[in-house]
């Protein structure tokens, strides 16, 4: 525990020296990663140069836009890439993104960042880290984005099939109704069969259970919450695999959950050490002087002593 604390302090010290620059770099990397992954939706319809320009421009925009604008931009770029392959598929994706925006993103812009976070975690094979993290830090507001992310990840592969059924070359405004029927007939059996809704229910349960445990007045409530969420995910996924035909690997589920629990444990241990108040540069004046001030929040030493006393 003390090793984690001292590591957290060293990390904070390095981070605080150039906080603004670090934030810009992290946002840029996240933006480039997200928009780079979205380029897969073009299905070869766009040239590499085109994709590179869009990815870099959107990555740069990510560094200074708000969360809701970032989500709108990501949805717009995803629909644009799909439009290059199939108009009807782009329209279906646009309707989905529009509904998600009006019913959730518009009201909870910061919590909706769970969606790209979870899709990125899926890419790195540790999607379980997001529901466990959300249980501690977001709570029940994370249920919708977690469920939406599971739906998106489980069914993105269907977009290729939809684009093949309704290619852009065959698009006519008159034929849009026939295309919609074809898309429905293609999607309806596949979406129900792949068991994504069971996985979504399991993740949502783990968020609820983790949140309930973390709000209990017991010792080590956060650690218990992580364990409770992890066990819920493991047991729930095993049930989903055996009884509901969910497309999840057993070993991946168990290993992934254990690793995710470890990651969230380390992050929450450093939580009190990393002060979320950022360094501020302000300027003001009075009758005699101009003041240029940099205010850097202190690391909370008192909390560290409290934790050390508890562990003794």
């Amino acid at each position, binding site marked *: 525990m003390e090793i984690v604390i001292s590591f957290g302090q060293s990390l904070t010290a390095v981070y605080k020296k150039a906080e603004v620059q670090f934030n810009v770099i992290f946002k840029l990397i996240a933006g480039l990663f997200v928009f780079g992954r979205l380029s897969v939706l073009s299905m070869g319809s766009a040239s590499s140069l085109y994709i590179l320009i869009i990815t870099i421009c959107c990555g740069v925009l990510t560094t200074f836009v708000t969360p809701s604008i970032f989500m709108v931009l990501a949805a717009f770029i995803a629909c644009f890439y799909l439009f290059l392959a199939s108009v009807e598929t782009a329209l279906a994706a646009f*309707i989905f993104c*529009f*509904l998600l*925006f*009006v*019913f959730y993103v*518009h*009201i909870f812009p910061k919590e909706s960042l769970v969606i790209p976070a979870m899709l990125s975690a899926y890419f790195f094979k540790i999607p379980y880290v997001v529901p466990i993290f959300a249980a501690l830090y977001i709570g029940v507001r994370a249920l919708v984005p977690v469920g939406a992310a599971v739906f998106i990840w489980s069914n993105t592969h269907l977009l290729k099939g939809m684009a093949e059924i309704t290619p852009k070359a065959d698009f006519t405004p008159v034929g849009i*109704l026939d295309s*919609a*029927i074809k898309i*429905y007939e293609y999607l309806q059996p596949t979406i129900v069969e792949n068991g994504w809704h069971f996985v979504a229910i399991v993740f949502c349960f783990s968020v609820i259970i983790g949140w309930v445990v973390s709000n209990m007045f017991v010792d080590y409530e956060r650690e218990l919450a992580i364990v409770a969420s992890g066990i819920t995910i493991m047991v729930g996924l095993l049930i989903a695999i055996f009884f509901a035909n969910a497309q999840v690997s057993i070993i991946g589920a168990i290993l992934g959950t254990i690793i995710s629990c470890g990651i969230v444990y380390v992050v929450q241990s450093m939580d009190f050490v990393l002060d979320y108040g950022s360094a*501020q540069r*302000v*300027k*003001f004046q*009075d009758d*005699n*002087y101009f*003041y240029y*001030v940099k*205010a850097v929040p202190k690391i909370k030493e008192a909390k560290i002593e409290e934790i050390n006393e508890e562990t003794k």
Partner: protein
Amino acid sequence: MEDLKKVRIMTNLAIYDKNHGEEDRKITSHYRRDYVYKKNLRIRIGVFLGSAVLAMLYYGYKLFIAGTDIFTTFSKAEGIKIGTAVVILFVIYTIIGTVINRERYNLAEERCLQYEKMLSKLNGKKETHITKEDNKNERT
């Protein structure tokens, strides 16, 4: 150089102005009820548009995929079903919007109060009990 205490207060005031000041003044320039109503109106417009899209998809499914005839699809019973669902959605989102925006307003008002207290301290005024109403009247 002014004494350090004053510089600290001025720094805290400047930090507040930079991070929350403008937004908090915009929020608290309205009465709580007006602010919540305005925000809820935007949410309701979004929910209305979303409901319209969902209704169109539902009717499209009924007509072209389930093959129901047009009279059954646009019957009174179906209309009541859709209308009830839309009303329930409106109620749920109004409750959610009210809770969130009230919380936002309360936080902004609290921060403004703290700001006014720091300002009084800086100006060397005796700290009087500043109420939320005084704060609002002064600002408007």
